[in-house]
């Protein structure tokens, strides 16, 4: 695996391999001494063109626990404002000889473009309203553990997952839909019509604008963050009305089947899309997701960088166009 740009790039065996190693890594997480020598001498650059404390720390810990040299570049506003093109910015870091670029950008497609311009491996750490493949991998990892706890031989094809919230502006939903398509789970997207992506009828999902209609039949609900500023865009009239229609309220929590997993990629707007009762419920995987994030990203870094080691012993041709 040279790059990880989209959840659609991952085959089922690749997903399983990433999760298998992530299981091992999550054991390391609980040791007193967490450092493994695996990526010693390799360099990972976290290029964050957009602020994200949680994803950046997660990648940073993942790299450090594997003994890679990790540097963080906060490139926010440093590109177009200085007159430097994205290509120049990423090519500059690439020229220093780094092994992996972890790219977060407010513009959809920036990591895919970067991969065309650099020699290093590129990991998409969230691009605009497009994708966030490591988030989908960690969501699936946490969900898989949850399902396995009650049925060690569970089949993804028997699982129903509802993803609820601001789907139009969510990179999490796109990666999850693609990953779950490969796994075979049945996904239902739930949102008011104003927050359903264009062309959602062509996605491999069910679409429903009535949250209550799906509550009792799902094995997991993924609640997505709803930004209050969406109100200004007229996507919904008030936060109160949104919560009544689409929030995981105490009342809806009570109507979930027992054991239905609750996920949220964070940061949560408690009281808006998710009630405190639901966020802190026994079946909430919110903190498991965060923990899984580091383990999954350790595994992804390993797969991306070790693949590169195996493929290239010596000099590599520069990919310029």
């Amino acid at each position: 695996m040279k790059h990880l740009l989209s959840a659609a790039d991952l085959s089922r065996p690749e997903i399983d391999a990433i999760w298998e190693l992530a299981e091992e890594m999550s054991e390391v997480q609980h040791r007193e001494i967490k450092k493994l020598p695996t990526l010693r001498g390799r360099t990972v650059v976290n290029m964050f063109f957009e602020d994200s404390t949680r994803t950046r720390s997660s990648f940073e810990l993942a790299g450090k626990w594997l003994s890679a040299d990790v540097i963080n570049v906060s490139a926010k506003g440093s590109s177009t404002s200085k007159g430097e093109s994205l290509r120049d910015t990423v090519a500059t870091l690439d020229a220093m000889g780094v092994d992996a670029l972890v790219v977060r950008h407010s513009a959809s497609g920036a990591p895919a473009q970067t991969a065309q311009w650099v020699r290093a491996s590129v990991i998409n750490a969230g691009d605009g309203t497009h994708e966030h493949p490591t988030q989908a991998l960690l969501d699936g990892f946490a969900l898989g553990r949850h399902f396995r706890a009650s049925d060690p031989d569970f089949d993804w094809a028997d699982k129903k997952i509802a993803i609820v919230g601001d789907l139009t502006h969510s990179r999490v939903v796109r990666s999850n839909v693609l990953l779950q398509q490969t796994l075979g789970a049945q996904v239902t997207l739930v949102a008011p019509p104003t927050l359903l992506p264009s062309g959602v009828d062509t996605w491999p999902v069910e679409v429903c604008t009535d949250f209550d209609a799906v509550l009792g039949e799902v094995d997991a609900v993924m609640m997505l963050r709803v930004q209050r500023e969406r109100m200004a865009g007229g996507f919904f009239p008030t936060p109160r009305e949104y919560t009544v229609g689409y929030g995981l309220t105490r009342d809806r929590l009570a109507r979930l089947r027992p054991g239905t997993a609750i996920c949220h990629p964070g940061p949560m707007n408690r009281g808006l899309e998710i009630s405190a009762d639901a966020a802190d419920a026994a079946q909430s995987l919110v903190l498991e997701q965060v923990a899984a994030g580091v383990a999954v990203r350790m595994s992804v870094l390993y797969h991306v960088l070790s693949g590169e080691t195996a493929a290239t012993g010596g000099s590599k041709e520069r990919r310029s166009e």
Partner: protein
Amino acid sequence: MNDPNKGADVTDLLIAGVQLPNGTRTDLGVSGGRLVEPAQLSRPERIDAAGLLALPGLVDPHTHLREPGREDAETIESGTRAAARGGFTAVCAMANTSPVTDTAEIANLVRGLGEAAGHAYVAPVGAVTKGLRGEELAELGLMARTGVRMFSDDGKCVHDPLLMRRALEYVRAFDGVIAQHAQDPRLAGPGACCDEGEYSGRLGLGGWPAQAESVIVARDAQLAELTGSRVHVCHASTAETVDVLRWAKARGINITAEATPHHLMLSVAEVASYDPTYKVNPPLRSEEDITAIRDALADGTIDAVGTDHAPHARQDKEHAFTDAAFGMLGLETALGVVIEAMVNPGLLDWAGVADRMAYAPARIAGLTDQGQPLQPGSPAHLCLIDPTRRTRVDREDSLSLSRNNPWHGRDLPDPVELTIYRGRVSYRR
């Protein structure tokens, strides 16, 4: 505009055995900047045109030449050389330069630089509003006195309906036309960069719905009817716009429209690569839209081809897709694309090409010296083409200063052998 004596010092030309758009074969004489009977020529240079077709010099109603202001991306000299290579003898230079062409002085500057270069006639398009800000009318009348007939805020929509009404009314006094960049700025705001639909949703790019174009076209058609004025629709890109144009024309409204070569052939699927070369405004559309635009150009609902040639320096394109500049090159490849998209599938014959790429755009832009039939007495603006010749497009092989060529690597007709502007050879392969 055309000084017939200008060609007097040039060798006469005898274009022998050339086919005309109507299918007849003939010899054409060129002398003194005009087409003449071959018998009137004195010691002409003979151009063997057996197997070649003559078209009237092509007229582009929609070109961005970037000068003044962004001479690193294109100059009037380089842009008109590219135009001549594409078979064009006149281009309408859009007003979104720096400074904006919103005064008679800038209009004269642009026209003068075109005359100095001498590769094709450069007709400055005047801004509708000062600084393209959409707030108050530019000095339309003073620009008209220098010869400007077409006015456009292209790149921006004249969105204020009252301002649009006034502009339409005002230019009626001098038979001007408002060329509208139809984009409702609320329905398709600054983040809109991808045809709204399956691709925008999947790629997470700001959607640009078809209706953001067609609602403005519908409004402007009705304002043209109200004011008895003439409106021209720039770069029509959607089936919905075609529907509105059909309705408006059937009603007798004085409305014309152009389609770009890229909207005749490239679909939104290109955007899946996030390659900013394919970022253009209005965006590349669906296959259904492409079919509708082709059919409309074939039946005359869309009157003309306009290249929307939009050169950009590399540093303005090599950004994230949403941050990169809008626009793509078009002058050198336009005729090849029209042949591939319209002539080869049987949608348009050569007379139709002459109309959509020369007669109609000249009429729309008010260029009386251009877009004339190839017969004795007409100004000698023409191109000779080999419709069967093809090439793999190479963006480095270009007379433009920019390289944002969406046709790079594609196999296309490469027809233009020779272009004659004011009786002189302005391009020879």
